């Protein structure tokens, strides 16, 4: 199979992206997000999940959660690049919502290819939010690693590093049995389930570890198929996270070049000095390389699936490096004000720091790639 020249990004995808741009421009200016999520600078503040549920229901009415749900499950059946474009715009707005998590859960459920999964996908299409609970305490990104077990169809153990756990209405949990890893859908309000919020750096997300004590669950991938489904969904998950980094990186780039144009020192705007200008150009190169790699990998998922993991790991490697680079240069070139809580930069800086490690940082992706392309090291 080969990829279409336009990355599968056609008229419908462009319309959806443009409507997202308008939505975020109308509703989520950086100062609004800042006043919403950064109203308490106390380093030991209580852990809270701050987000605008009203905006989220508008998004669901606009059909974004249905975009990548297959038509037979009640969705729109758009290609992965559609979700990537929405994630890019959400990243550009540093938007606090379960959008990315719901996309990730969507792709995991799609890979389950079961009636039970299709039913949950139908709920997502009508606006039910979901997230993945698939990471163990050691923070392994490998699909077969989980600290949750299944006994008589009930879940026990703890899932770690669960994104947007306090916002979602469904959890997609990986759990091991003697016959391998399965995937299970759980209602966060279920009996025996406790969500313990993590204190995290990123102000625009919430994260938690979730304790299961004999919790009722719906099996969506049978033992032995769960890790396969997660591995199949992995390229899309890497693309969604990388797309958020691209959007966030672009916001940091534009905001910092704007500042370099107005801030004057030594009688010149900062951008006059090549010590500032050239690294910002390098940030642009990194953003663009990543953006091209992300759309390429997302397109591969639909049209060249045998290449998808390789290309998605390339995208996430590039994205993770760029996440660090774009955010560090933005703080540095804003000077003293960039080091303050009052400047909006830190909201994006922290989102990029969080993004960079999610589902594996750059060196991790390159190690996986080297194993794929060079064979394991002796």
């Amino acid at each position, binding site marked *: 199979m080969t990829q279409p020249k336009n990355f599968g990004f056609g008229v419908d995808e462009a319309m959806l992206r443009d409507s997202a741009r308008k939505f975020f421009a109308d509703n989520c200016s950086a100062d609004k997000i800042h006043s919403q999520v950064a109203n308490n600078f106390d380093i030991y503040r209580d852990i809270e999940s701050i987000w605008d549920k009203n905006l989220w229901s508008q998004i669901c009415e606009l059909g974004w959660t249905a975009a990548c749900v297959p038509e037979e499950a009640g969705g729109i059946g758009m290609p992965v690049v559609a979700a990537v474009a929405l994630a890019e715009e959400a990243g550009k707005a540093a938007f606090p919502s379960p959008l990315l998590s719901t996309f990730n859960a969507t792709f995991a459920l799609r890979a389950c290819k079961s009636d039970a999964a299709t039913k949950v996908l139908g709920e997502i299409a009508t606006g039910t939010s979901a997230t993945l609970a698939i990471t163990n305490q050691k923070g392994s990104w490998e699909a077969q690693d989980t600290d949750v077990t299944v006994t008589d169809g009930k879940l026990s153990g703890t899932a770690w590093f669960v994104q947007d756990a306090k916002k979602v209405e469904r959890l997609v949990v990986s759990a091991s049995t003697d016959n391998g890893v399965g995937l299970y859908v759980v209602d966060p309000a279920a009996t025996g389930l406790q969500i313990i919020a993590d204190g995290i750096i990123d102000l625009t997300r919430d994260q938690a570890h979730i304790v299961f004590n004999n919790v009722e669950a719906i099996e969506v991938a049978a033992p032995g198929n769960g890790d396969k489904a997660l591995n199949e969904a992995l390229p899309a998950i890497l693309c969604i996270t990388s797309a958020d980094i691209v959007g966030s990186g672009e916001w940091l780039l534009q905001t910092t070049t704007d500042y370099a144009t107005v801030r004057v020192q030594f009688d010149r705007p900062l951008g*006059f000095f090549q010590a500032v200008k050239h690294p910002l150009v390098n940030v642009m190169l990194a953003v663009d390389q990543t953006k091209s790699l992300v759309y390429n990998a997302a397109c591969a998922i639909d049209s060249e699936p045998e290449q998808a993991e390789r290309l998605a790991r390339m995208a996430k490697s590039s994205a993770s490096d760029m996440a660090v680079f774009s955010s560090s240069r933005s703080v540095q070139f804003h000077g003293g004000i960039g080091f303050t809580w009052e400047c909006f930069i830190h909201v994006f800086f922290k989102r990029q720091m969080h993004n960079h490690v999610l589902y594996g940082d750059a060196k991790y992706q390159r190690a996986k790639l080297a194993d794929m392309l060079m064979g394991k090291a002796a």
Partner: protein
Amino acid sequence: MSDAAKKDTPEQAEFRAHCQQWLTENHPGQPNVHIPQGALELSDPDALQWLKQWQKSAYDAGLIGADYSKETGGRGLKDCQAIANQEMQRAKTPFFPNIIGLGMAAPTVYFHAQESVKQELLPKLLSGEHIWCQGFSEPGAGSDLANQQTFAEKKGDTWVINGHKVWTSLAHFADWMILLCRTSKDDKYNGLSYFVVPIQSMIGKGVTVNPLIKLTGETGFNEVIFEDLVVEDKYRLDEVGAGWKVAMTTLAHERGAGLLTTPSAGGMVMEKEKGAGIGNAMSLIDLAKQSYRNGKTAADDGAIRDSIMELMIRQEGFRQNQRRIGVKELNDHPMRLPLQFKLVATEMGQDIAQLAYEIEGASSSLYVNDENAAAGGQWQLAYMNSFGVTIAAGANEVQRNILGERVLNMPKSK
């Protein structure tokens, strides 16, 4: 069906089939002379002759100048040159020797010369019968290109040119030069004009070409001295004083951001350099498997593995950038990606060669004149030569200014 062939127009599909068939039957095969890594390193007249013959045969078959009008020696097709380029790359052909002619002089002449001059010069340029060179850089005008001192003075119906050009690749073989020079001292930018001038036929009659030796030990570029060279007025491109504007057409094409696709061939590897895969990050894997480090192969070394993957990712990103240029909806600024081309391509090439050098370990001390050198010493040569392209066509520091100012709208650094 190949990726590239997927959305050809009927005209393109027919042309692609023609290219494929012609290349199957007419690939020139391995040469009997040594061909250097690129046209800018050409110094052996026999190698030049062999490559000129290849260019002529490709031109006669329509693989060069496909998008140029029939009157100017082309085929008058639409968006077909890129197809010929893809097929020539796929067939791993030799490169074309008239690289400056095809990439810079041809589009500039095409867009700015009077019709009779186009018809006079372009057919022989495209066929490679005439080799072209570029007279832009001067001792005092490198990155500051507009600081031209070479002067053209109008005398009756002709121009008399005096001055000194440097780093002039291929001037020792060139029949013609594209020349940027000064026609007025009153205005830095609006005092510039642009000419095409004969070189070989005027040596000793106002033109002197002296070779300059590169740091690699190769020749290939020169200084060119003009002493009262007389040039007809018809060889002036565009208006007097419009030289900077015309030069921008040249530079846009040189940097891969022009309106016309440059005819370009390549991919052939000399027999004894096979396996080197110069310029391709993928070939670093094989090189690492054949190189030793710390008791294992370099391919088992974690740091080397990470570095190779990093470059393969950059290479894929560069490729996908070129693909994304064609998707309007994924470009918020039309020049943002095209203007990155030269900068990204040349630094990537340099970094790939530098990593190859590192992977080779002790063997990297051996040069092309040592039979034990890994890959014929070609990576070492490629690394040293890579500075030619990070400096030429506006040093990459200037490229960063251009990107920062024109795309990111930051204040000018001058």
